[in-house]
């Protein structure tokens, strides 16, 4: 009897302990998360993340409203003073685009073999995202990027020259445009939140990217590509590449959690834009859309002094359309295309019109987009300080100023318009010293790159002339 007890114990233990290795392995596979997913779900997720990124106004993730001086912070003024480093914003942008947009798009592409339409859709979004990164940082990891696992694994990818990346992006946009001109493949339909699988719409998007990339670089480098593409690009406000957000989190417009749900009051409108739009020689009707008429002080809009604490109760607020959770997100719109074409025409490129025509079209498109009447636009365009022929400054400055006004709330494009063209009356920071004094010309690389990709980070920093906010991206004047 006693012996049996012992044997029983031993047997129990041996049996329990000796599951085969394969059983052990199966315990190590997560039952709650899939080992594989559809290309559709990756595509939709990338698209939404890209849309959120470029439409976000949260100063912790996307401080561009502040850099473009459309808005001013009320109490915590770091970003308004051009301290973009303190809150690690570069890192948020860098990681969102690489990890949550580009990597997932590349993965989606690898799963759509045999459907060139789908591949082209993913490609167009990728090109958009790459340009966004280059325009933010300058040189970035490109040719060796997105290889955390696999045959070409690289956990410390080298940085590529920004101008060279542009060459490749233009090439890629041209071939995506060609693929979309064909008829092969079914495309993402339901998963396509911006075009519902409309091939024509994607084709316009691809050609608009050629215009946007090609015109951004000064000189005539991409003249032929732009001349070939412009007529196939967005041609009306109705063509705008937008996405309708939804009424509840997490699918609201990204500004809603910051402006409404949080109950916080972090922004008032910036003095720079308020003063220009309300000046007697502009009296821009868009002021009553961009700003909240109820927040006038003594019948005047009051903007916060850039870089200075600006009390919520003593300054004017953003227009009410920006507080709507279902406000549309925009990737690219007809308004900006018009201004790019104005620039192209001013350079003597053959883009179907004069600089002045495209310039006026851009202003009209902006008015239309803001729900204002064409007559209001015409009156505005007729003002001597607005009309292309009589407005002050160089071609670049005229285009830059109006592009900057039209890009209100699209902070990144507004800031980029200032960097590319000048013209907008942006001011240095009131308090910043050193690299934080002038309006940044780029974002500095994430601090993590200096530690996790140190060798490549160092070479890239010296290649661009120092990892500073004042260093200019290659297309910057």
């Amino acid at each position, binding site marked *: 009897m006693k012996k049996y*007890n*012992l044997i029983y*114990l031993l047997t*129990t*233990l041996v049996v*329990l*302990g*000796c599951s085969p*290795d*394969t059983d*052990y*392995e199966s*315990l190590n*596979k997560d039952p709650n998360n*899939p*080992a594989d*997913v559809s290309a559709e*779900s990756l595509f939709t*997720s990338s698209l*939404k*993340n890209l849309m959120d990124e470029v439409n976000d106004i949260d100063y912790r993730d996307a401080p561009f409203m502040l850099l473009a001086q459309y808005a001013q912070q009320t109490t915590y003024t770091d970003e308004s003073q051009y301290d973009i480093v303190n809150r690690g914003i570069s*890192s948020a942008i*860098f*990681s969102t685009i*690489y*990890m949550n947009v580009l*990597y*997932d798009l*590349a993965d989606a592409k690898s799963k759509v073999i045999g459907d060139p339409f789908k591949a082209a859709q993913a490609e167009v979004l990728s090109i958009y995202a790459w340009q966004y990164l280059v325009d933010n940082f300058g040189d*970035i990891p490109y040719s060796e*990027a*997105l290889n955390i*696992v696999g045959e070409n694994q*690289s*956990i*410390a*990818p080298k940085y590529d020259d920004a101008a060279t990346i542009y060459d490749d992006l233009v090439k890629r946009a041209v071939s995506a445009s060609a693929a979309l001109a064909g008829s092969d493949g079914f495309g993402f339909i*339901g*998963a396509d*939140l911006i075009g519902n699988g409309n091939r024509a719409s994607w084709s316009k998007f691809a050609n608009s990217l050629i215009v946007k990339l090609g015109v951004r670089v000064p000189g005539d480098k991409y003249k032929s590509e732009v001349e070939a593409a412009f007529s196939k690009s967005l041609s009306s406000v109705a063509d705008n590449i937008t996405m309708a957000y*939804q009424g*509840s*989190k*997490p*699918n609201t417009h990204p500004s809603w959690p910051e402006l409404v*749900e*949080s*109950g916080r009051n972090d922004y008032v409108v910036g003095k720079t834009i308020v003063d220009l739009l309300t000046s007697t020689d502009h009296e821009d009707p868009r002021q009553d859309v961009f700003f909240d008429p109820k927040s006038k002080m003594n019948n005047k809009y009051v903007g916060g002094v850039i870089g200075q*604490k600006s*009390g*919520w*109760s003593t300054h004017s607020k953003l227009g009410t359309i920006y507080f709507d959770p279902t406000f549309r997100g925009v990737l690219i719109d007809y308004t900006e295309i018009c201004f790019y074409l104005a620039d192209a025409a001013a350079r003597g490129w053959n883009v179907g019109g004069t600089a002045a025509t495209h310039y006026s079209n851009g202003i009209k498109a902006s008015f239309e987009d803001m729900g204002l009447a064409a007559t209001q636009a015409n009156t505005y365009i007729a003002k001597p300080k607005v009309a292309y022929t009589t407005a002050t400054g160089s071609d670049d400055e005229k285009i830059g100023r109006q592009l900057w006004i039209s890009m209100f709330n699209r902070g990144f494009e507004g800031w980029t318009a200032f960097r590319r063209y000048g013209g907008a009356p942006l001011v240095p920071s009131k*308090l910043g010293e050193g690299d934080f004094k002038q309006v940044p010309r780029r974002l500095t690389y*994430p601090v*993590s790159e*200096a*530690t*996790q990709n*140190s060798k*490549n980070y160092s070479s890239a920093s010296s290649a661009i002339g120092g990892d500073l906010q004042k260093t200019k991206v290659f297309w910057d004047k």
Partner: protein
Amino acid sequence: MYKIKLLCVFGLLFSQVMIAQLKTVTGVITDESGAPLPGATVVNLNTSNGVSSDFDGNFSIESSVGETITISYVGYTDQTIQIGEENSYNILLVSNNKLDEVVVTSLGITRDKKSLGYAVQELSGEDFQDVKALNPIESLSGEIAGLDIQSYNTMGGSANVIVRGYSSLTGSNQALFVIDGTPISNSTPNTGDMKSGRGGFDYGNAAMDINPEDVASVSVLKGAAATALYGSRAANGVILITTKKGSKKSGLGVTINSQILFGSVDKSTYPEYQYEYGQGYGGQTDGGDGYWLSKWNGSSAVNTTDDASFGPKLNGKMVYKSYNMIPELTALYGKLSPDNPGEPAGAPLSFFNTQVIATNSVSIENADENGSFRLNYSNTNISGILPNSSIDRNAITFSGSRKLSDNFTTSANITYTKTDAVGRYGTGYDGRNVNQGFRQWYGTTVDLEMEKYVYEQTGKNYSWNMFGMDTSGTDPNTKNHYFNNPYWMRDKMANSDTRNRYFGNVTLDYKINDDLKVLGRLGFDQFDFTKEERIDVGAVDPAEYYSSHRTVSERNFDLIVSYTKSITDKINIDANIGGNLRVNQWDYMTAQTNGGLNIPGLFALNNSSGPITSGDVSNYDATKKVDGVFARVSAGFDETYYIETTFRSDRSSSLPINNNRFNYSSISGSAIISNLIDNSNIDFAKVRANYAEVGADTSPYNVFSSYNLVAGFGGQPLATNPSTFNNPNLKAESTKETEIGLELDLFNRRVGLDFSYYNRTTEDLITPLEVSKATGGSALFVNAGAIENKGFEMVLNLNPYRSADFNWDITVNWSTYTSKVTDLGQDSNGTDIEYLALGSFQGGVSLGAKKGEEYGILRGRNFIYHENGQKLKRSNGAYQRTTSNTEVLGSIIPDWTGGVKNSFNYKDINLSFLIDIQKGGDVFSLDQRYASLTGILKESARLNDKGNLIREAVADGGGVNMPGVNEDGSVNNVYGEANSYLTVEGYVYMPEAAFVYDASFVKLREIKLGYKLNDNLINSTPFESASISIVGRNLWIISSNVPYSDPEAGISAGNVQGNQSGAYPSIKEIGVSLNLQF
């Protein structure tokens, strides 16, 4: 009836005989060297009378022939003699210290301490029971060399338990807790955001479910050799707890313990405010009367919208305060109130209540030759310092054993605890932490008594921080800007949690013969934990209800065969072989509402304003199995030389199939040199040395990658790649440790010393290596990284004085270590990775590991120093600071830690106190960083060296002249402005280095004054024994360098330390403890 009478008569006769033979017996008690032992206890077991020996070891006691007396003395084996005809006895007591001391080691195996080749330090259960801390683990603080305990002053919050330093980069560094051979979970359910100071609650660490009343003894196994048989997870040290078992009792065997402790805030750990200036950020006075800019009906209104105290200088003017702008408060609405300088009746400290901890327990125990049992019930009730905060904990423990036959014994220990908490304290930078306001963003002239009144009158969330008046001249806006009414918040938004837990073991012992035994044991530990967090409608933050359920369990099946044999007179063998199967399971489910709540005060998922999506829920299910076989052989020669070796082979389901087995072994030896030398000053001496290797696995799901599903959009599914990529080529981690030690007892046991030196290297750490985000991921699991820990530990026991009535003992613990990061892996170019982030704090400070430096460095912006050592100033009188935020500003690792415990015994009275010391280590204070800008602190309204208020403009003789130099090294005497949030002393200009402080401290950790009723008195009571004591904890911070805060304050247990954000003050506790046995 007749029989009883007869018995009585017989008894009377018998007692007559006994009384007749009563006499006084005398004697002298000496130790082996012939030295007298003063203060030894002599008890007549028949009468229960007892006496103590005098200074020369003499005693005298009443007794009769045939009675039994026992002589006992701490550290010596008891001796029992039967009284014969003689009236005088010479008693020789043999020291049991070291020579026969038995300690519990790995797997619950008991060993002679003298034979061990590694360090083990023991504590009695009393150290756990003397002062019942909020978290019983805290009781170990300062008691053990090499054991570092930190807790964070929150009710029922976690304790960080680190043995011999941090040796894992990203994995857990917490010691393993083992109760009666069964490991129990010590996980902390706090979120990552909470641990890095971004808000949340401290739900404690699971080991706090140990009921202090059940603890008989604690031994701490520090090194790898001591813990090798537990495998990897014991690499961080093991705290072995042996619970009380039933013992034979003369009375009913009932013990009652009661303790009540009252706690109050230690004011030295809370800010001192200025009360001269009102709310505002500065620069907002209107210039007319130098007063408020905001006007209502022509009169000034307090600038309630600003959560700072750089407002106007107060002068008693009549103004509108927040409570004058609340329409429902008709008695005060629209009336003016005087704005007087001076401390308001309701200053922040008035918000805190007296903390009360009441602990009551009752136990029943008994034993006979066939078995024993013990049953304990304990209740602990805590009411915290914040309104509406309490914890109630009930614990029931049963332990029993029964001899089934001559060689078959069965036993079981089972503990059930239920802990219910309401209103745990909010932590970190979060509106639910009142200290975010009181320490950082606040109007110091706010009267909290009025806040309370406003809440009581209206039931609504009107606060001192309402938007109030703007310049439009319309009626004030009563919506709150950043802060809720603290009384409303504590009342309406209390979180709650419940933990049901069962742990214990069932054991069968089978004795095959005198040499060979088999033990089979099932150990189990399971808890179900539910936490609920709430933000009500009307709060500044969006309303939310959050609910999380976790079930965590571990089962261990052990089979251990033991063999002991004396091969010859001189050679002893002691060996085990065994097997273990461990099964861990985790099952978590979390859900929260989306976009607010529809009905105020209804905290339920179905009250969600928006639809609950996959972004609002999560679940995690995992099982891990580890099976292992092990062997241990120990041989002793002549009771002088000992050698031991262990081997273990483990297979873990968390590792890849082709690398899932890992083997490791240890060897240790010791020599009792006091047996070899003849010196009467040396009572005992032993040298020991060991070398051990230990392997370690990892958590589940680090091998195969999977996708994340996120909330759908308009019916479309969304999925993303993970941010951390897994690795199918992982292998086990490895720890190698060498340790040497010396144990000494000198001068007739007046001096005892235990000294250890160790050198531990942990390598191939399974680390989520942070990679360039341009790879498409943020981290990749790899075997990378190595840490080298070296340190010394010393325990010194002194007995400066002993006599019949008085004894004085001193125990000193001291330890020091360095944790050097020697490798962090390489990137794909073969470049060494230099830095690994461990945590990033709000305020621009990060915690990390840097290759070649100590683990746990704090980084941020520093001052810029001239080569003459002075700080460089700017032209506006502020300091210059580095652009780079990666300057090393300090380290969380202390230079050394120590404890000194003094115990005095005078007859029936004992007094002991413990001083706990930390030297070095740094902490970043977000509290000070923000307070530097909001003008709340006393020093922001001080006089400058010209005798003027620094808040006057520099042009008017105000401002501050901070010591510093110009670029050329010449002295810079520029005064900087200090009259608004742009003060040169504020963080707008100051680098983070200005807010990193030396965390050294000296604390009076514990004090106890006890009185035990002596045997003469106890005989007149119904009790077997009774004692009463006055106890105190954290009564005095003797030395500290962190302004307005407890240097130990922080956020939560875990690897992220060195961060004070909304820190809670230290609590001074004092109370009474009662112990009765009958």
